């Protein structure tokens, strides 16, 4: 087990395309790091560079404090699980797991003991003599993890390991990976495009876009204090609502106003958690008001601190546990998470908005406004 340090990593391909533009990440021994972002953001490239499968153009990668830039993959003491599982088609499950061990000249008896231990851990004992083609998707996934586990690596690397599984199996394997990490405590880097995997598995999350880390922090940071509208829109399902609004000081308190649009009347909400003195100068400010769907709920889930406002509902979607109501605020389509029993009359519903959880973004730059008192 080891810490992982990534300092100012850049990657430029020979054709001049720059896919990573200075990445800085640090995780402690035993931590679970998630690299998340859309396709083409550079997350898989970064993982391949940690593995040693791609060269580093600039910067430094250190495992356990030791620079590994120029080490081949086999000398980095890592193990990797691939999206396609990459099981060797001509070998049995046992041979797949033993392959890496025999290449490192591990004695036969020790190999057998390792295979037995790993097979027991992942419950694949009955599959050992089968070929990959004879396994189901979930079983292949287990074997791929087994092959990685057999190495007892310093760092585990996962490249979207669950994206080829069906929804049910994905949830199962997700908790299994979490459990495994808890038991073994091996430092892990996990690439995914799925924000739920990111939120549930990670100790730290790095949200990436266009080769740049947008935000690096705990799941709580990323979810509740996104630094820009990209992170706010990427994490959470449905994502954070971004409502065009203006902010000004009125009668000693900070108030945000949302303009009328279509059937929706103009309304304003007090932002009591922001001290007037903390606001940047230049009021009224043009902002995007970031509110999570669960902070725009119906009056049944009432809390006296929530601000009330009646809005026009365009459509509703019943998910069972919640009803999602779509409303247009300030011209933007927003989602509110309502109790299924919430009274909606004539397309009108009374919302309770938790403005304390709201985040303000500069409308021009998309960056969160830094407010000293928060």
């Amino acid at each position, binding site marked *: 087990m080891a810490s992982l340090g990534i300092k100012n990593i850049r990657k430029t391909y*020979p054709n001049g395309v720059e896919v990573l533009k200075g990445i800085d990440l640090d995780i402690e021994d035993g931590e679970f790091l998630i690299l998340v972002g859309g396709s083409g953001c550079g997350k898989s490239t970064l993982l391949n560079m940690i593995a040693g*499968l791609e060269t580093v153009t600039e910067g430094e990668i250190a495992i356990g404090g030791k620079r590994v830039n120029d080490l081949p993959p086999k000398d980095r003491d890592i193990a*990797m699980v*691939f999206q396609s599982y*990459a*099981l060797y*088609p001509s070998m049995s499950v046992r041979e797949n797991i033993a392959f890496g061990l025999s*290449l490192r000249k591990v004695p036969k008896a020790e190999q057998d003991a390792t295979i037995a231990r790993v097979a027991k851990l992942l419950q694949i004992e009955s599959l050992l003599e089968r070929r990959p*083609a004879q396994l189901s998707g979930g079983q292949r996934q287990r074997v791929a993890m087994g*092959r990685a586990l057999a190495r007892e690596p310093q760092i585990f690397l996962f490249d979207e390991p669950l994206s080829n599984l069906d929804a049910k199996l994905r949830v199962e394997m997700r908790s299994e990976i979490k459990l495994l990490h808890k038991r073994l405590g091996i430092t892990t880097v996990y690439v995914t495009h799925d924000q739920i995997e990111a939120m549930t598995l990670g100790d730290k999350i790095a949200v990436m876009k266009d080769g740049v880390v947008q935000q690096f922090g705990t799941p709580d940071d990323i979810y509740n204090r996104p630094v820009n509208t990209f992170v706010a829109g990427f994490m959470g399902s449905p994502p954070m609502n971004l409502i065009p609004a203006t902010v000004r000081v009125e009668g000693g308190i900070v108030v945000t106003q949302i303009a009328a649009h279509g059937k929706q009347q103009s309304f304003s909400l007090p932002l009591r958690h922001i001290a007037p003195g903390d606001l940047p100068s230049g009021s009224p400010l043009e902002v995007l008001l970031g509110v999570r769907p669960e902070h725009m709920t119906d009056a049944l889930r009432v809390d006296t601190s929530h601000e009330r406002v009646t809005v026009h509902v365009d459509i509703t979607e019943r998910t069972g546990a919640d009803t999602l109501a779509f409303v247009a605020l300030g011209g933007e389509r927003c989602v509110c998470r309502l109790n299924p029993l919430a009274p909606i009359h004539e397309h009108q519903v009374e919302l309770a908005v938790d403005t304390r959880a709201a985040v303000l973004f500069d409308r021009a730059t998309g960056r969160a406004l830094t407010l000293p008192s928060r």
Partner: protein
Amino acid sequence: MNRIARLALYGLLALAALYTLAPMWVMVPTSMKTLDEIREGSLIAAPHVPTVEPWLKAWSHACTGVRCEGLKPFFVNSLLMTIPAVLRSTLMGALNGYVLTQWRFRGSDTLFTLLLVGCFIPFQVVLLPMARTLGLVGLSDSVWGLIFVHVVYGLAFTTLLFRNYYVGVPGELVKAARVDGAGFFTIFRRILLPISGPIFMVCVIWQFTQIWNDFLFGVVFAGADSQPVTVALNNLVRTSTGVKEYNVDMAAAIIAAAPTLLVYIIAGKYFVRGLTAGAVKG
């Protein structure tokens, strides 16, 4: 209606098969007749008293030019030339395909395109430069020279076959092996080769047919002692001292064609299977 269509289909197929087999049918009986019987003139009749004499003569003491040792020494030459040339060109094609798909480098696609051009160079064009090259490296008039020529000439096609097969092998397989600690050749030997069975068969059959049947390179580059069976067959049929022995000619032709026929019969099903085999399922 369906029945009639089916009957017509099978009838047509039977006709095509007969048409293809007709020469064989003429050759086999003729090779087993005595010269007297051949002179009677019935080309397709079965022999009255089958004889193996023409076969023995074709194999061991018919005259090819001034030598009268039959096809045997030349048949051996052909084997000595074909087997190493087929194996070498196939293995090198596999290695090329592996590099061109899994270890891409700058210009690897261009290199592949250039190699493809090699498939379309007519034999005649390379005769003179190749003769000069063989002379320079001291391989003229030898079986080794012929092997060299066939390997070089076959490489374009074998590379094409293996490259198109390996392009379907997921790159993550090679990455996984690298993380496991396998090097360039270990990955090739332990991961790629074991899944190359079908395309290996295709390549071997193709190369065997090409090299065994080649006449031009054989007649140009081989010395008197290293001529392949195709050249010897030509000499045998054209050597006329007195009577033209049709039965011996026929037997010799069948002997010369037998190995390729055998390869097709034994491995033919793999040939079709390999040509249609797509990506590797893993």
